[in-house]
């Protein structure tokens, strides 16, 4: 089976998946009832007529299938409607808040991959030594601590006691750090990125170590030692690539699930990202925003899975395309 056909099949499958999720999402939101009614019925001075007009304005009248079709048609054109609370196009909100989320998540994923790989390599090469012991125990600790606790401890130490790092927000409201927007932005990123990195690194390190230990036991690695290859080449060229494969799935999941860790992080650090936006929208029943963010999460998960599958094929010649 050719690579193109494999790709097309996966793409078709991904599209079907997204479509399915969109339908379920729409049905669920629909089941809640007319949000305008829910939001305004208690408000004094709001007539039934006004609710009907507003419902028409937000496209909430008409039958289910028509409304689903119309909504689908607009979201494939990147029109997610207008936020009820912010009174702003949801597309714009997704862009602005999404960038803030990426600002935390991408550096955290990159950093944790680097740290976990280095730590995993050290631990696996000194198996059962003290370095291995300390790396494994800290990773276990990081793995079992709740994420928000790490965030709060970081805030306590660096903001409250040492007073060197800001504890909330993405930018200073009054004095910029060192008078520069860029430095100010980076300064605010440090603690939330650190919290996410701790969270990701722990699991990645344990995975990296165990798969590397496994690979280093293989006969083809013994063969590399028997050739007299230096340790650096044996570990980095012969073993690491093979040991990295189990990591791919988890990395893919991390990318796809960025918005799984975002709400907690962004709530702890009052960060204006998609996670915080999502939480607010849910509280306030801002259904266009809820639907927009959910679709973004879905698409990200599906794309991450697709990329992981492709990466597997690229990295492992044994995987048959099918």
């Amino acid at each position, binding site marked *: 089976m050719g690579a193109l056909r494999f790709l097309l099949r996966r793409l078709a499958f991904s599209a079907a998946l997204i479509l399915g999720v969109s339908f379920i999402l729409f049905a669920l939101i629909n089941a809640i009832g007319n949000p305008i009614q829910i939001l305004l019925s208690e408000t004094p001075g709001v007539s039934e007529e006004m609710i009907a007009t507003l419902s028409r304005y937000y496209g909430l009248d008409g039958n289910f299938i028509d409304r689903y079709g119309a909504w689908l048609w607009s979201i494939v054109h990147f029109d997610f409607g207008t936020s009820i609370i912010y009174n702003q196009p949801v597309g714009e909100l997704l862009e602005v808040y999404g960038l803030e989320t990426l600002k935390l998540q991408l550096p955290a994923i990159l950093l944790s991959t680097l740290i976990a790989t280095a730590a995993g390599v050290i631990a696996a090469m000194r198996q059962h030594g003290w370095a291995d012991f300390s790396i494994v125990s800290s990773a276990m600790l990081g793995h079992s601590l709740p994420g928000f606790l790490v965030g709060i401890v970081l805030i306590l130490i660096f903001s409250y006691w040492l007073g060197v790092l800001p504890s909330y927000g993405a930018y200073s409201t009054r004095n910029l750090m060192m008078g520069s927007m860029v430095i100010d932005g980076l300064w605010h990123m440090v603690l939330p990125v650190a919290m996410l990195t701790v969270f990701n690194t722990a699991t990645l390190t344990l995975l990296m170590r165990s798969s590397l230990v496994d690979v280093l036991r293989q006969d083809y690695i*013994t063969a590399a030692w028997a050739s007299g290859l230096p340790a650096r080449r044996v570990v980095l060229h012969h073993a690491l690539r093979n040991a990295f494969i189990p990591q791919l799935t988890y990395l893919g999941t991390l990318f796809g699930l960025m918005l799984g860790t975002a709400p907690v992080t962004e709530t702890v650090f009052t960060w204006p990202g998609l996670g915080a936006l999502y939480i607010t929208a849910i509280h306030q029943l801002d259904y266009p925003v809820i639907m927009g963010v959910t679709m973004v999460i879905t698409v990200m998960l599906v794309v991450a899975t697709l990329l992981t599958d492709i990466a597997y094929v690229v990295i492992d010649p044994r995987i048959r395309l099918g």
Partner: protein
Amino acid sequence: MTALLEVRGLRKHYRAVRRGLRRLFARQQTGTVRAVDDVSFVLQAGQTLGLVGESGCGKTTTARSILDLVRADAGEVRLDGQDVRPVLAGTDRAAMLAVRRRMQYVFQDPYLSLNPRWTINEALREPLRVHAPQHQRDWGDRIATLLERVGLEPRNGVRYPHEFSGGQRQRVGIARALAVEPDVVLLDEPVSSLDISVRSQILNLLAALQDQLSVAYLYISHDLSSVRFISTHVAVMYLGRIVEIGAVDEIFARPRHHYTAALISAIPVPSPGAVDQRVHLRGEVPSAMNRPAGCPFHPRCAAALPICREQVPVLQPMGPNTQAACHNPA
């Protein structure tokens, strides 16, 4: 005359320690596996020493200790008279590589010994990268010659291991060992994981390569008929020790240790109607962890004497070119 390879008093014991909670629940808390216990032998240039014995008797550990792939507890490995164990474990890289180049290893399972994500050419390039770094331009030619020499098409070098059969992969394993023109190749059961039909092809290839390259083999196997085919000498191992060693013809004609006799009589006889004279091995195979006192073979030996239970027999000359460790030789 100094031997090409001389192993003296090689020893490797594993301590089986249960870690953590399992220690609380285990009946047997610790034990020592005497995987290799005082093993000595000589291998001359161009010869083949067959090392035979049942599974778990320490054949692989012996071979890997010789190459320092497993760190032995004691013993010497002399290559042309020089003890190379300190060299292999030492920090002088040039000296270490000089020794590694001369002694190569072929693995039992060709499915596990080739990196699944590397092409055959890439796999064969690795030994050259270390041992012929200055001749990078010749690598391609050398690899093609090697592949031809082991009976593979050089154009198939761009393929991955999973595209080859077991026999073809083992040919690659042999090519990798020969890439650096070694003087000794340690063959660890090179055919036992292959189909019966391909075994003789690989054995013939090994024999032909030995004629062309005058390389010496340590041929590990539990299959005595293949040992008889390819070896000039044979060493029989039982629970970590060599119990009989010598010229192949003499030992097959007249085995003196009762374990050797049992192994030889267990070789299937091809002619129909042949009288079954097999000596059947009685009793369970003892584990290397609880080796019986005295002659470790005594619980299974029909010729055992009272002394066999108490005194460990030592290797003694039994014929012009053989030695056996037995109180009551056959």
